[in-house]
């Protein structure tokens, strides 16, 4: 009433954006380089941050060239960090707007948007006796969060990276080895070639008895899933994918965002989430890989294709689609 059409919070945000009751935000406090193309970002989360479980990820909204972009990153700090800060560790990928910005352009003091921590790539309550972590590249990040958080009796880490100096957290990992908290097997793919999953027998003979958490590129995870299933122990393998495995694309179509009043042409391979964002439509988003359902939106008309399965969904009253893994399959109308 006092501030209509604004809310009192619009004014409070000017002075205290991290206060309790505000939209969840964080402030970047420092950026530490890890390797040539990876860096750890220290974030002071707002008062309403509910904490995380080791292995989980957080969604962050960063303004890159003035445009707010949302991505998910694994939390690499332990849950009991004294100062209440969290860290994410980001590897700059080719054409990655957010990752390159965070690694090379992020300035301490910058406000970012945060989601609450989420994800089920975590250790169970009852700690397993023997654990194998299987990671490649930036797939080490959720595992580092777990290693820093939870000491376990018998832990083996098989980690793949092109060269020794590309291994993120290499010093920390070697410290853990020196303290006898970890057995580490580094596979340097530039010299050793890609890890053949069958070599696990030789690297970690008891791999099939171990609860395993694997994170890395789709090729590694697909091979691992096949291998574990082939040996009859698929329940021992827990995987975390950073990207959905896209199998099908078809013809696109004209996409109407009826609330915003925009119409654009879309191909059959681009997720509707990207199409909408590109057009300046306010699209809710989440994990961007079909898991969290943070992006669901009513499909008012037309048809869309699930990029993971090729399945076609047609509009009916009440039909919701995940825009991050759905592409236009002919003309369609999305209620945003």
């Amino acid at each position, binding site marked *: 009433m*006092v501030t*209509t059409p604004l809310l009192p919070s*619009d*004014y409070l945000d000017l002075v205290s954006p991290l206060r309790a009751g505000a939209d969840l935000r964080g402030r970047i406090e420092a950026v530490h380089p890890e390797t040539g193309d990876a860096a750890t970002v220290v974030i002071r989360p707002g008062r309403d941050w509910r904490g995380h479980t080791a292995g989980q990820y957080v969604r962050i909204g960063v303004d890159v060239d*003035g*445009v*707010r972009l949302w991505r998910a990153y694994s939390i690499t700090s332990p849950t009991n960090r004294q100062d209440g800060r969290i860290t994410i560790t980001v590897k700059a990928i080719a054409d990655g707007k957010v990752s390159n910005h965070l690694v090379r352009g992020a300035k301490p003091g910058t406000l970012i948007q945060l989601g609450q921590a989420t994800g089920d790539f975590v250790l169970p309550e009852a700690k397993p006796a023997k654990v194998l972590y299987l990671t490649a590249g930036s797939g080490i990040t959720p595992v580092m969060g777990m290693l820093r958080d939870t000491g376990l009796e018998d832990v083996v880490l098989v980690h793949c990276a092109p060269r020794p100096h590309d291994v993120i957290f290499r010093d920390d990992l070697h410290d853990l080895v020196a303290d006898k908290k970890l057995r580490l097997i580094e596979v340097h793919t530039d010299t050793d070639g890609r890890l053949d999953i069958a070599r696990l027998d030789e690297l970690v003979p008891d791999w099939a008895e171990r609860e395993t958490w694997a994170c890395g590129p789709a090729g590694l995870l697909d091979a691992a899933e096949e291998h574990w299933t082939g040996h009859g122990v698929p329940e021992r393998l827990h995987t975390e994918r950073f990207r959905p495995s896209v199998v099908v694309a078809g013809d696109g179509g004209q996409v109407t965002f009826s609330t*915003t009043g925009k119409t654009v042409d879309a191909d059959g391979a681009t997720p509707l989430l990207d199409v909408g964002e590109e057009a300046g*439509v306010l699209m809710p988003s989440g994990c961007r890989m079909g898991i969290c359902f943070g992006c669901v939106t009513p499909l008012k008309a037309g048809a869309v294709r699930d990029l993971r399965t090729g399945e076609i969904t047609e509009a009916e009253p009440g039909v919701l689609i995940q825009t991050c893994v759905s592409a236009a399959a002919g003309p369609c109308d999305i209620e945003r």
Partner: protein
Amino acid sequence: MTAIDPTAHLTAEQIEELGRELDAIRDEVIAGRGEKDAAYIRKVISAQRKLELASRGVLLFSIFPPAWLIGTAGLSVAKIMENMEIGHNVLHGQWDWMRDPKIHSTTWNWDHVSPADQWKHSHNELHHTYTNVIGKDNDLGYGIMRVDEDQKWHPFHLGQPLWNFLNACFFEYGIAAYDLELGKNLHKRRRKNPEFRARVRAVGRKIRKQVLKDYVIHPLLSGPSFLTTLAATFTANLVRNLWTHSVIMCGHFPEGVQVFERRSIEGETRGQWYLRQMMGSANISGSKAMHFMTGNLSHQIEHHLFPDLPSNRYAEVAVKVRALFEKYELAYVTGPLPKQVYSAWHKVFRLSLPNKKPKVTTPDRERELVAA
């Protein structure tokens, strides 16, 4: 339409080429939009909010004349910034590209009695699409005035200087009524239309909130300064109304601006649409501060060509657009605020009477055309 068609010398091919050149100007700005622009609008929004808070704070003591003066002046400026450089432009979607839900055309609401969605429909969709087309663009005299010889005269128009003055004083209510298309919808048959009634209720709610804030809550908060704060907010709203009305009159009413007939836009091409926007709008020249306080609507021509480009870019776009006017030998209508306001008011007075015969042409334009 005025006696001479000032675009008659252009071939269809030239008009399409002009359209392509304007598209190129637009593409260049879009490609260059970035962090600086985002920082600009956030800075303006933050400054506006702080100014409004400070002014309302000072007005708590408005019983003291210096506090009244400072508070009223600050609040007037804050309200103008909020409506013009921020509200009007955010609601145009000029900042949607930032994907910030707090600064987006679909979530924004403004310090104004017309609800944002109704204004967006009548302004963004109707006025900006059918700019200056008689019978299609209700902004041409807002349905209460005659602003072109080609609009039919009616004895009602004798009073139009008075209507215009009253509209200026209560401009935000005028806009709300206009967005509701009251003139059309008050006919018996339409009055009961449930969609129309829902919109009337929405306006009612918005007015109630605005009035409660400005004329009840803030005066009450001022305690012994109740009456003086009431007078201050009333004055600030009045100043804002008079200012925005003046700026907006200058956009399409000054002498030299063209209007168009309904059938002239049938099958209109992109180039022809651009040309209509160029000939149907007028600018205001002046300092940076003046441009800012008009919400950059002083660059009305550029705004009408590219309604969704960020307002802070219109000044640089104007240089290129003006060069195109020269290249294609078209008259760029612009002038200082007092001159344009006078010109618009002069037209309101002149056209309150029926046309003289023969039809009045506009001597300024003829001179410019001869010179060109």
